């Protein structure tokens, strides 16, 4: 039902005025202009919601496109979480938007914290220690310049109503522009007052640089830079970077677009302004998170044309020892989890499912020492093909954002689920029953499992 345009609001209003009382459901359609909804409904985050209803998921934004990495979760002051999303493609509305999500699932209207014209930019967002958003941007030059620019901006989280948040440029650097349509993705990870940024410099054959910035007073200054040459399978203009930081501070850099490679570096070993990165090691899997003790990845298997989905498994490859593989999962061909997010020594990944239709957006958790397990589940009220998803754990809640295709556009959805951390069974890698055929009512469904990966 979601997705009807505002004109239907007028039709239904006429019907209601004529004495008809159709059953519209809890979330029948998008709000009309100015937040218009039928009587008995209110406009919540662009969608008409029946008074008193608490939908399990909300659709705060319809866009032209959101790239897979461009969803970032942070904890919100005062409770709940905040999603920052970079919409680089919607005509006239390009920018980074802030959406607050309450633990009960209520979602605020998107608010632009940074808008831009011109070409698309790639970004990464971290929480700065002073409470601001730390927004890392990579942008191509316009016709007047020859340099690709990387910037770190500090953007205020709160501002007087109706005013534009202040923006401070905290750091910037450039590299010669060698061409391309979109800047490659950039990764960032913060630890208190130190920030690491990973990006690809295409000159000189192409190399990944990790810039280490430290806050010194009011300023952020680079204290060292590490670099490693791109592996042969990653072209210099396609060096998309993601950066994972484990609880010990060890960094794992993932580079690549369709072929990936990994490198690690330990900032604690910095000496005389230098840190070594390991040589990039190619992998045929899709790395989702990295720790000093190993890498967690998704492995694609056979394609099932009947369901337009791949058989997938989840592999943990320890730094020493044999890999552990959890099999029996599926991933629609349009979908990628892209990366995991750190949580309590492990990483959260979504969607993880055995049902190619993804009636729920399930969240899995894995750590170097604990096996894969489903820890949260958000029922969907929509049926579009999922593109990508990002989960975030905070307290006893999992906050999940995902993008779905809708005609020639894309919808951003958000849901909140209880997060199960204790007393969970272990996931059966060779489960002989299919889950997720019916929508769970209430809390998340957790599999009881045994087998591979069980301690």
């Amino acid at each position: 039902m979601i997705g009807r345009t505002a004109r239907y609001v007028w039709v239904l209003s006429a019907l209601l005025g004529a004495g008809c009382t159709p059953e519209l459901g809890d979330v029948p359609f998008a709000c009309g202009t100015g937040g218009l909804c039928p009587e008995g409904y209110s406009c919540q985050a662009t969608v008409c919601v029946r008074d008193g209803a608490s939908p399990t998921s909300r659709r705060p934004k319809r866009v032209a496109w959101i790239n897979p990495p461009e969803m970032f979760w942070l904890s919100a002051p005062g409770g709940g979480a905040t999603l920052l999303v970079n919409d680089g493609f919607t005509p006239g509305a390009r920018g980074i938007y802030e959406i607050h999500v309450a633990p009960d699932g209520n979602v605020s209207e998107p608010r632009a914290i940074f808008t831009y014209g011109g070409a698309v930019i790639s970004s990464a967002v971290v929480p700065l220690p002073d409470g601001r958003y730390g927004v890392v941007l990579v942008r191509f030059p316009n016709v007047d310049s020859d340099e690709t620019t990387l910037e770190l901006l500090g953007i205020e989280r709160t501002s007087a109503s109706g005013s534009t948040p202040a923006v401070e440029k905290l750091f910037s650097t450039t590299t010669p522009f060698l061409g391309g349509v979109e800047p490659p993705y950039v990764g960032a990870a913060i630890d208190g007052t130190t920030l690491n940024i990973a990006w690809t410099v295409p000159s000189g054959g192409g190399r990944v640089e990790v810039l280490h910035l430290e806050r010194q007073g009011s300023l952020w200054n680079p204290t060292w830079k590490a670099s490693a040459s791109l592996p042969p399978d990653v072209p210099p203009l396609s060096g998309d970077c993601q950066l994972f930081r484990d609880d010990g501070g060890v960094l794992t850099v993932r580079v690549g677009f369709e072929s990936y490679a990994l490198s690690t570096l330990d900032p604690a070993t910095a000496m005389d302004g230098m840190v070594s990165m390991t040589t990039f090691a190619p992998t045929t899997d899709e790395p989702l998170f990295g720790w000093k003790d190993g890498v967690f990845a998704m492995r694609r298997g056979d394609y099932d044309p009947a369901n337009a989905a791949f058989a997938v498994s989840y592999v943990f490859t320890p730094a020493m020892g044999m890999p552990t593989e959890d099999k029996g999962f599926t991933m629609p061909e349009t979908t990628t989890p892209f990366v995991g997010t750190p949580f309590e020594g492990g990483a959260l990944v979504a969607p993880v499912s055995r049902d190619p239709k993804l009636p729920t957006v399930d969240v899995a958790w894995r750590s170097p020492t604990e096996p894969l397990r489903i820890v949260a589940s958000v029922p969907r009220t929509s049926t579009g093909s999922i593109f990508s998803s990002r989960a975030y754990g905070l307290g006893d809640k999992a906050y999940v954002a995902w993008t779905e295709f809708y005609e020639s556009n894309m919808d951003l959805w958000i849901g909140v689920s209880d997060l199960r951390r204790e007393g969970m069974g272990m996931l059966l890698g060779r489960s002989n029953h299919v889950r997720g055929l019916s929508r769970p009512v209430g809390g998340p469904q957790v599999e009881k499992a045994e087998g591979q990966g069980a301690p």
Partner: protein
Amino acid sequence: MVAALGMFGAGCGEPSFGEMPALCAEDGACPEGYDCIHGVCALPGTPVPVTVGSVPYLRGSDMRVVPQASGVLVVWETYAYSDDGQRFVGARVSPAGAVSPRMDIVGRFVADSDSLEPYFDVLPVSGDRVLVAISSPSLPEDPSVEPRLVTYRVDLPPEGREDQPAAFESAWAKEERLATVGYGAVSFPKLLHRSNRVELGYVRSRTTTIDNNLETIAELAIFSMQEDGTLFSPDPTYHPARANLPVAVGVLGGFGTSTGAWWILDNERPSAVLLPDGGGEAEVKLGRLAVPVGADDTSLTYIEPSARTGDKQPTDPVSGPAALRTVAAPVIGDPMPPAETSIGALPGLRDTPRPAWIGRQGAKPILVTPGEAVDAPELMVYLVDPASAATTRVASIPRLSTRTIGALHAVLSSGKLFVGWLETDETSATIRMAILPEPEPPAAP
């Protein structure tokens, strides 16, 4: 509509109906003083445009207009994700403005519907034969990301017999794979007729070691072919290019001279590579957004368009005058940039869509442009004095539309000036064409 307008003739004086007051009646009738031109009542001689083709979506780079025996051939592309699938199609337009049925030019080409759309170029070589060069990203099942390049030879049906199918085949034994430094870094291909052969220019990019340093470089690859598209040699010649410039670029133009050829690379940060037939190469960096329009053995002439404003994207507004400039041919081995000369100012014109320029022996060049506005309601036709850049506006082509102009081409054929353009909005892309007499043609010998 015509009948209603006729009422005004019943004693109301001499009303002015404007230049194009109405569509023609079913029998082609129009008010007195107007001619029925392509279905529109218009003042005599008005170049009323015709529609050549319409698709849901078309990039500005994916349209070509080339001369035929008596008219022109318009070629465009349908994409792998469209209902028509990946094809290269076309229609002829006669000097009278009749548009032929659409023909498949290259009716089958394998392209990834989830990847960058292919690029192409078209070159008429003899009779009804054209060559079509196509570049395209790698396919999902390919072991490498190297883009693909191939040339087809196409024998079109005779003019007037477009109900018959064209015959096409690959002129090359296999698709060539060229290095790239990015998944989406696929060069525009450019075909150039050189006396008794055809050359195809393509920019490859790669990483290599130079003086013990790893570098990311570009090279202009030249494939030399017979006029039927058969390669003289499977291996192209490579020429270093784009020093200190972006390397993921395409070939935007080519000019043959008596002693070699100029190849124009990139549109935003263009450069011109001169390849003398005797060997070697020399490159000159051109001004931002420069549009080369002609060349000979000693110099290259180009338009410096009006400056972009706002976010300086291709469709953003422009302001200020344009200019006509020349740059001397670079000397091989000489690091000094060659001399540049300003010829004179041109009326304000934008770089996108690229203005159309036709050089003529014994007559002034023709310049066609919408001017400064990307949605200009009319296209201007100028004659340009190549010695002073002084322009004379000789015609205006009403577009009957304010949709964005995505591309612009102009070709002379059979004493007519054929002006074709692409206009787009969010839901469709339409190729339109206007035909008018060649302005001030050269004097007969």
